[in-house]
């Protein structure tokens, strides 16, 4: 039962549920949105013919429902203890924790690489981009600054250290997603506009990469090295990875730059240090991948035919956008 019309239906409900969640008046509406989100995502990822995807969808269901239960409970406690401001601290912490678990952020992230390993690229794309919108926005409504800064540091460290030992591309992108979650949570604390900016650029970069991997049907690192790809595909890969890591002339540097600017102006020096160092580790393992695939000349396997003639325009466009958007964006403000 894998029709496109089924997928369209559930996708529509997925989008709608996020909109419900972020535009509701009360916390209860938020919770409802989150539940519908969960319920509509499960059919998207479960495929009864594949045992792994069944297991994946089950894992996803379990963690997300645990988080939803927690969220609902904390909302009810908050409503019942309305006048008691002493509990604000702990309630905000618990609510933030449950939202963090929804997103797959640091202390509650163990399910995230596992599940990502079991999904196809398109489902991964939905998981990494769309599913983060409503928890983030709900986080911005009621957050605890000290707690979140601690979570950010944990996010960054786990995202960078966990990815060093991976060879599967999906897990790699999962750990980089955890790292970028750290940046995004901090940008929520600065301003929601900035979060939107970061999120849009992040999802654009992730979409470029995932579309590239999807078209070439690549799931593991060694698949990048075995094929002798077209030069432009390799160039696109290089540019996208470097942009994701936040290297200057590329697009991904811009949001990170603004965040660092804010950090330094407001004297968050230690946090800046952690942001920088973990970015370095992440760029290290990106460069490790693209160095091997970009610089070396591998044998051409004749049974893998990588004719990308139909999709070259998309790749060229994405490379062009990644390279030039930082400079072109200055023209907007002229």
């Amino acid at each position, binding site marked *: 039962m894998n029709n496109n019309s089924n997928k369209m239906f559930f996708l529509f409900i997925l989008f709608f549920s996020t909109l419900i969640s972020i535009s509701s008046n009360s916390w209860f509406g938020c919770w409802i949105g989150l539940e519908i989100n969960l319920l509509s995502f499960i059919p998207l990822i479960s495929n009864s013919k594949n045992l792994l995807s069944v297991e994946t969808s089950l894992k996803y269901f*379990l*963690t997300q429902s645990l988080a939803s239960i927690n969220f609902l409970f904390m909302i009810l406690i908050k409503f019942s203890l309305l006048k008691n401001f002493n509990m604000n601290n*702990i309630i905000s912490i*618990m609510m933030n924790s449950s939202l963090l678990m929804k997103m797959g952020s640091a*202390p509650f992230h*163990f399910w995230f690489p*596992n599940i990502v390993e079991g999904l196809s690229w398109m489902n991964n794309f939905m998981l990494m981009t769309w599913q983060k919108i409503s928890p983030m926005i709900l986080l911005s409504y009621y957050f605890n600054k000290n707690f979140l800064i601690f979570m950010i540091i944990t996010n960054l460290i786990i995202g960078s250290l966990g990815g060093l*030992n991976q060879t599967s591309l999906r897990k790699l992108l999962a750990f980089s997603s955890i790292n970028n979650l750290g940046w995004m949570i901090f940008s929520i604390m600065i301003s929601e506009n900035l979060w939107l900016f970061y999120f849009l650029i992040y999802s654009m970069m992730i979409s470029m990469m995932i579309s590239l991997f999807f078209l070439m049907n690549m799931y593991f690192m060694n698949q990048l090295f075995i094929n002798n790809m077209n030069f432009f595909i390799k160039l696109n890969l290089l540019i996208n990875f470097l942009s994701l890591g936040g290297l200057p002339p590329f697009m991904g540097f811009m949001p990170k730059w603004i965040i660092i600017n804010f950090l330094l102006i407001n004297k968050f020096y230690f946090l800046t240090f952690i942001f920088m160092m973990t970015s370095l*580790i992440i760029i290290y393992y990106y460069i490790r991948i693209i160095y091997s695939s970009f610089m070396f000349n591998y044998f051409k396997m004749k049974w893998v035919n990588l004719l990308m003639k139909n999709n070259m325009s998309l790749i060229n466009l994405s490379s062009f956008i990644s390279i030039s958007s930082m400079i072109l964006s200055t023209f907007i403000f002229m």
Partner: protein
Amino acid sequence: MLKNNNLICFNSFFFLFFFMLINFFFFVYFIMNGLSVFFEWEIISFNSMSIVMSILLDWMSLLFMMFVSLISSVVIFYSKSYMNSELNLNRFIILVLMFVFSMVLLIISPNLISILLGWDGLGLISYCLVIYYQNLKSYNAGMLTALSNRIGDVMILMVICWVMNYGSWNYIFYFDFMKNDYVMFIISFMIIIAAMTKSAQIPFSSWLPAAMAAPTPVSALVHSSTLVTAGVYLLIRFNYLLIDMFFFKVLLFLSILTMFMSGISANYEFDLKKIIALSTLSQLGLMMSILSLGFPDIAFFHLLTHAMFKALLFMCAGVIIHMMNDIQDVRYMGGLSLYIPLTSLCLNISNLSLCGIPFLSGFYSKDLILEMVSFNSFNLMVFILFYLSTGLTVFYTFRLIMYVMINDFNLMMIYNLYDEDYIMLNSMFVLLFMSLLSGSFLSWFIFSYPYMIYLPFNLKLMVIYVSILGSILGFMVSNMGIYSLNKLLLSYNLSSFLCLMWFMPNLSTYGLSYIYLNFSQILFKNIDMGWSEIYSGKGIFNILKNYSVFYNIYQMNNFKIYLFSFILWFMILFIFFFI
């Protein structure tokens, strides 16, 4: 047989010869009428800044230009036949022409910037010419040449810096006014050091014998007459400034020692071009020492006559090397006067002119120098070393003549020695003519009145005594058998000290770099490949990798464990913040 059919040799020879004739005409006109012309060309003038190129033409610069263009034209014509089998002859000739251009720029410039252009050009192009044959020995020689000359370049740059105190780089305007200034003191020190590096005096003299790795026409042009005399010329130009300075006495001391040292070392040498290089070094020391005694015009006179016969000597050496199938070792040669009469004629005349045999060109300048030294009162060491060096000059000259021309031919049983290379011979005859006549010709022109010298009889004949002694010793030494020569090993320390130019090449190359290379090896092993690897290179990578592996232990778990960890975390937060 001529393989290279190009016209660049002929064209440049005619051009330079014509240039020489123009210079000769103007020199005669200028010196007879006492003229001196100063051209100034204003390139840009903007508010208060102006860039001006100036050229000074007086008799000294015209005469020197005439000699330089004559020698270079003859050398280019000579190299048409000498460098015949060279594939890139155009490159060679163009390098030589650029060298001549730099030298001319140095000669005619009255300000320090164009001197710097000429000076740096000389150093750079002589490096390109020394490494022309691309082998390891030429590379090492080129490095030694270029780096020694570079010290002089740096000194001139610093002089430019200091002269900016006076507002202009035209140094000739400041001689009369600023003699006792502190700035002039520093400038004179640096100028002397620059001239010492270029003219290869004692601390920097290791490059001149090493630069014999260059092709012979290059040695004839560069290392006999033009490059090495650039330092002397600079000091002649700055002479008014330097004459009272203390460092001039230091220069006297060092140049006398150079003269003496190279005279001794030339007696131990068996490489033809090295003997001639050391004789050039000795004559350079002579020029520098008479200059530092206060006689710039005699130094200039000796510079010019020496250029003539030394270039001729190098060219004859080139012919001999060609004929000996590229062997430069003097022990293989012998009896050449019987087989190549015309070349040995040139060789003889240039050698005897070097010794100072009466009425050849070298006699006029050398004898004048020695008589001036005896006539004016200088100290005993100056006197002894001058005469001793003259004797040593005759010594190694006669040794060379005996080895090359008189003793038996030592190369092979079957030989073909020919003297019919008319291109080389014609170029040598031009220099031969000049080498015979230039002494008297120059002395009539340069000295408007002769020097008044009044010496006692024996002192006058001292030169002849020393020369005869030297020639007898040269004759005896060249007849020494190999078993007697081996006895030199008994006094190994002394003979190696005297033979290896008082160990200056070793000091300039190995001695300077040994400490630093050792130290940098220690640094490299301990820091680059040692501690900095632990603390920043592989060490940090290992730490991060271990953390990642450790993290993976937590990641690779059952799902229950994840859920349990979440609940545990909630409980911790709850308890921690609630209580």
